[in-house]
């Protein structure tokens, strides 16, 4: 093959790969009469986290539309510049470097999820950018970055938070000598979930009989061997830290091998997405997982219902998660808090805006509150709760839009019903 042809092929390959790298859409690249304020981010718009990424994007777009309808920020329109990171954290640092140094955005929003947010943290720190986080588990633990603000409702005890809710609920049964199996996905999120679960287990004096991680999707196709290994230990409590595909597959595998621990679930992401809820349907009965919004009467957070009404009417049209219970309210709040800080300070200076958010806390559709005084960048008080599904009779989405089917069992302040113990797993 001649060098010329080889060179041509190489160019084609690079061009194709470049399209893949920057497959997302950059809005607001063109100027206008009044220079727009530009907010940059990468999001998982495709890949295994695409459902979450797209719902966050819609929440941000609704937020920007709300602000622009009011005349913008500092009298200027606000625009979003975003790229698709394909749910691949290794693409994130490059995209944020491009956003800051090439696109020269005024502010940034984080990508979605612990691995991606952690990956972009050094870039945000290097450039001194205010860095609002969108759904990460203790992403700032090793960095201690002053201007990282986590819009995620678990509070300062991020790593142990979900596990605490789960094991606290188990302890409230009054049963003694409970044994625990911990299974999590082998990524940044799973590692932190496991770490938190082990801390929590120690606190409650429980005995761990199984602790392992499984290779992330799609490396693990069949979960029955791993669930059977857990079943073989006879663990009473099965605590899982999984991403969406793992969540669905592990629940199905438990049903198939006939494993019915007394409490099952924990940090299973994806159970709040409509597609997964309708896929699982009655299989969710008895499962417990940490959630951030469900239509229960004990949940009264800010204007979440109003926001969800807007979101749901748009989501149906745009083919995005039609419920929006998981990320969207917090994603809206993340963008809204940033824009409010810019407006209040009248400045685009990162330090000025960052200090303002630090001092004034967060205030948006999810309510308002302060930041953890210890400087973790997390909200001061946890807003997470543990839900136990029950009475799900079909795979219809309407099952999940009414009270009484996703009962909050912990913590006490949000409790909307008693815990069923042992969990009536998979019972119609």
């Amino acid at each position, binding site marked *: 093959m001649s060098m010329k042809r080889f060179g041509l092929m190489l160019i084609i390959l690079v061009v194709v790969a470049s399209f893949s790298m920057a497959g997302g859409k950059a809005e607001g690249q063109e100027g206008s009469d009044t220079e727009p304020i530009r907010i940059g981010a990468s999001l998982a718009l495709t890949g295994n986290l*695409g459902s979450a990424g797209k719902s966050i994007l819609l929440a941000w777009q609704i937020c920007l539309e709300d602000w622009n309808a009011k005349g913008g920020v500092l009298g200027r329109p606000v625009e979003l510049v975003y790229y698709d990171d394909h749910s691949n954290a290794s693409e994130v640092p490059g995209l944020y470097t491009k956003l800051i140094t090439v696109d020269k955005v005024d502010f940034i929003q984080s990508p979605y999820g612990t691995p991606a947010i952690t990956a972009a943290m050094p870039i945000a720190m290097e450039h001194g950018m205010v860095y609002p986080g969108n759904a990460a588990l203790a992403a700032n633990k090793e960095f201690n970055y002053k201007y990282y603000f986590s819009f995620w409702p678990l509070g300062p005890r991020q790593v142990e938070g979900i596990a605490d809710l789960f094991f606290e609920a188990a302890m409230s049964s009054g049963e003694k000598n409970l044994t625990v199996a911990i299974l999590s996905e082998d990524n940044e999120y799973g590692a932190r979930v496991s770490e938190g679960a082990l801390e929590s287990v120690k606190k409650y004096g429980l005995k761990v009989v199984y602790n392992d991680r499984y290779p992330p999707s799609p*490396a693990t*196709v069949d979960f029955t*061997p791993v669930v059977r290994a857990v079943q073989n230990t006879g663990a009473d409590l099965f605590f899982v830290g999984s991403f969406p595909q793992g969540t669905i597959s592990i629940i199905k595998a438990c049903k198939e091998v006939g494993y019915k621990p007394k409490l099952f679930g924990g940090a299973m992401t994806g159970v709040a997405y409509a597609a997964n809820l309708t896929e699982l349907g009655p299989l969710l009965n008895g499962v417990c997982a940490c959630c951030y919004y469900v239509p229960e009467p004990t949940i009264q957070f800010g204007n979440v219902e109003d926001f969800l009404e807007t979101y749901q009417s748009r989501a149906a049209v745009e083919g995005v998660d039609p419920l929006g219970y998981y990320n969207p309210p917090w994603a809206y709040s993340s963008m809204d808090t940033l824009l409010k800080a810019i407006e209040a300070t009248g400045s685009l200076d990162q330090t000025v805006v960052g200090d303002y958010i630090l001092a004034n806390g967060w205030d948006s559709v999810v309510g308002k509150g302060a930041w953890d005084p210890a400087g973790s960048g997390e909200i001061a008080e946890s807003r997470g709760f543990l839900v136990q599904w029950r009475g799900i009779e079909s795979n219809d989405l309407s099952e999940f839009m009414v009270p009484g089917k996703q009962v909050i069992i912990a913590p006490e302040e949000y409790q909307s019903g008693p815990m069923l113990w042992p969990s009536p797993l998979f019972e119609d």
Partner: protein
Amino acid sequence: MIDVILNTIVSGILIGGFYAACAIGLSISFGMLRIPNIAHPGFIIAGGFLTYYFNKTFGLDPLLAGLLIIPIFFAFGFLLYRGYNRFFESKRDEREGQMSALVLFFGVLMIIEALLSVTFGVDFRTVTTPWSSIVLHFGSVGICLRMAVPFLCSVLMVCILYLYFSKTYLGLVIQAVAQDSMAATLIGSDPRFAKSIAFGISFSTAAYAGTLFVCLVPVEPSLGMQFLGRVFSIAILGGLGSPLGTAVAGLIVGITESLTTAYIGSSWTLAVSFILLLIIIAVKPTGLFRR
């Protein structure tokens, strides 16, 4: 103890059969036609989404929906090979042709992912049938139909392909063309037609593997890219161009993964599988069944 071992091995066999279904088309295109179709896993996922579409829209059983999409994929594979042959293969020597194919199919893989994302969105999709959750018990061994049905379909697929390539005239012509295209021409066969048929068959297997995939686990558009390594490794392990070898390789990988998960730890699953692959390739570089 014996119960656990038996159940673990059965799980490995069932998932191994599915792996074989995923890899067999690649074995045909890469082994017989020498076309490194790295878009193969993308077509598997496309098959899964089309099955999902037929299931949700018309209420068809996924296994039936899979049969309906096979002709579509066959025709597409047939025509794609014609185009590939016209614009790439016939204008280059074999080495250049393979290089071109890598670039071409890499692009095709990404186009498939983009099309699926736009058409179906990025949510995980799966199909659930009345038989999906049925578990049959044979003594202490439990077999879920969600796993067993794809396995049986895979076995059937391998048997049909084995018989086709070893007993039918066209199958033998394809084998002859795969061995020596020029010599096959001298005895009156049309290599281009034979290869088009083989490529169509390769795509048909991808379509049905996709059907089985979406019955087993939820799929989303980018899974094809992520599944590439496993599909290639099984095809190579079995010996490119050998349906039987691919089936055995799938079973070896499935059982190894299953036992590793149960007795060493699920975090070691991939590592042990690939160590095994390296050992077998080191001992027998052509794969298990390639002559």
